[in-house]
């Protein structure tokens, strides 16, 4: 059985700090996706919402919140959360329903209105919650983990802060002409290096901001798609894997890793396993990819992803970047959208936005940032507590 579903439509609300409700952003993105698909809201059979945990109860039941805003239609609903990987959870629900024959066409929506500054846990005293505990007892924020990984790259592979800054320079160029990007300004190496150090060795401009934004997709069965279009972009794989025990790399929001004293390490590490799962499902490999959208929470993390999604062996990411392989015009451009560097993070929208970008790239509609002749692309992302997220699109 084919595991393909069609991406009939993609839409976004531009990223920024707009001071409005996440619901309006989501509706705008959904309406754009429906228009792009040539499908009417009343024909949608399933709404899969990506939840936001920073906007009260409507955010926890995002599917119904968006359905109500678009006008109750009796469609089936789903609301899911997986931190940064929320969008992949929503995509996975829609895809599984379509592949199981439970529906023909679904609308996937994720939207957020984000606070300024550091993300922090919700209130109350909850020592049994690792997210609360790490903030309270050690003052450990998300950039702490980004800093630890970046320093590790320097120690193990000889990376430099200039290498990290060069990722920002590349992504700022990529995002220049992206109408949905929040930051559309070229950034120089000197500007990154002279911005304040937030989590040594990372500077302010190495770390992504938090943003408002929304992204939506209309997904359908291949049969349904043939009635609407001739060569739809397809989702060929969705990986939502968890780590394998023991995971010996410290992960947000934990204060300690698993212990490897009693059990040997698994054959594949968590971050490597995420895209690996998608490649296996699609029957494709890294060498088949023409483009990648990776989760650059920090510049140094983008370099980690090059290796973890198989674009190069461990330790070669800096060379790949320096050789221009991952820039537009290179062998396999990474983050042609501009990535989180140009968007900032709108948590539940982000994994959906990655697929929107691949859709436009594979259709040849990514004006000003087009990867020429793109045939297949991969997204990768990771949510707090162990949510893998990787999608492969083909045309």
């Amino acid at each position, binding site marked *: 059985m084919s595991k393909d579903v069609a991406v009939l439509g993609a839409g976004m609300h531009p990223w920024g700090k707009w001071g409005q409700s996440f619901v309006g952003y989501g509706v705008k993105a959904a309406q754009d996706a429906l228009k792009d698909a040539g499908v009417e809201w009343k024909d949608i059979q399933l709404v899969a919402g990506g939840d936001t945990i920073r906007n009260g109860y409507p955010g926890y039941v995002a599917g119904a919140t968006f359905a109500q805003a678009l006008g109750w239609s009796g469609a089936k609903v789903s609301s899911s959360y997986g931190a940064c990987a929320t969008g992949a959870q929503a995509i996975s629900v829609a895809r599984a329903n379509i592949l199981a024959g439970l529906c023909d066409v679904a609308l996937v929506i994720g939207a957020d209105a984000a606070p300024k*500054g*550091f993300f*922090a*846990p919700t209130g109350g*005293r909850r*020592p049994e919650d690792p997210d*609360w*505990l*790490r*903030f*309270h*007892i*050690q*003052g*450990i*924020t998300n*950039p*702490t983990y*980004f*800093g*630890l*990984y*970046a*320093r*590790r790259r320097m*120690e193990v592979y000889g990376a430099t802060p200039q290498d990290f800054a060069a990722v920002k320079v590349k992504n700022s160029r990529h995002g220049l002409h992206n109408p949905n990007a929040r930051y559309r300004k070229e950034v120089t190496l000197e500007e990154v290096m002279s911005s*304040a*150090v*937030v*989590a*040594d*060795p*990372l500077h302010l401009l190495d770390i992504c901001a938090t943003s408002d934004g929304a992204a939506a997709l209309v997904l359908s069965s291949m049969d349904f798609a043939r009635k609407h279009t001739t060569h739809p972009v397809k989702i060929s794989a969705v990986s939502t894997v968890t780590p394998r*025990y*023991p995971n*010996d790399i*410290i992960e947000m929001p*934990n*204060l*300690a*890793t*698993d*212990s*490897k*004293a*009693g*059990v040997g390490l698994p054959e594949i590490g968590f971050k490597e396993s995420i895209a690996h799962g998608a490649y296996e499902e699609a029957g494709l490999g890294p060498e088949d990819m023409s483009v990648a959208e990776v989760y650059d929470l920090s510049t140094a993390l983008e370099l980690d992803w090059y290796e973890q999604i198989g674009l190069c062996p461990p330790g070669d990411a800096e060379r790949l970047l320096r050789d221009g392989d991952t820039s537009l015009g290179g062998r396999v451009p990474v983050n042609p959208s501009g990535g989180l560097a140009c968007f900032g993070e709108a948590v539940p929208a982000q994994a959906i936005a990655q697929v929107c970008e691949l859709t436009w790239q594979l259709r040849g509609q990514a004006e000003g940032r087009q990867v020429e002749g793109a045939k297949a692309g991969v997204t990768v992302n990771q949510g707090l507590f162990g949510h893998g997220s990787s999608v492969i699109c083909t045309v």
Partner: protein
Amino acid sequence: MEPFAMIEKTNAPAVEGLFTMDLHEPRLLGTRCRACRTYFFPAERTFCRNPACDHSDFEDVRLSPTGKLWSFTSANYKPPAPFIAKEPFEPFAIAAVELEEEGMTILGQVADGLGVAALKTGMPMELVLRELYQDEEHVYYTWNWKPIHGGSDA
């Protein structure tokens, strides 16, 4: 004539059950599965997280007080609540320390205002307790990591 100013504050852990309240030789408190010998910190008492082990019999263990620095970073800006920052805020370093016996890496602030310039991956580190914050009756402590004296080039 300020009788209340004389009252000594009581030392207390910021969160119960994570470490011994021993200011001289503190230890982190974990558990170990009696069947598969896997360690847990914070303590796990309900189920073994090793997927190949279906036991739920744990012994309390005191984790090794020393380890090797795996990586480090800094917090140059004040973390949000529920962290209670000293005013004015002073940046601190954060260490990820590998415990050999337990086969695990544990995070913690670096003690005594030592910055990243004092740190080097692989250097030996030891566990210490330091004040996290105070209220009117208590001084609350947490664990920190500190380079072992003279160990900077080890």
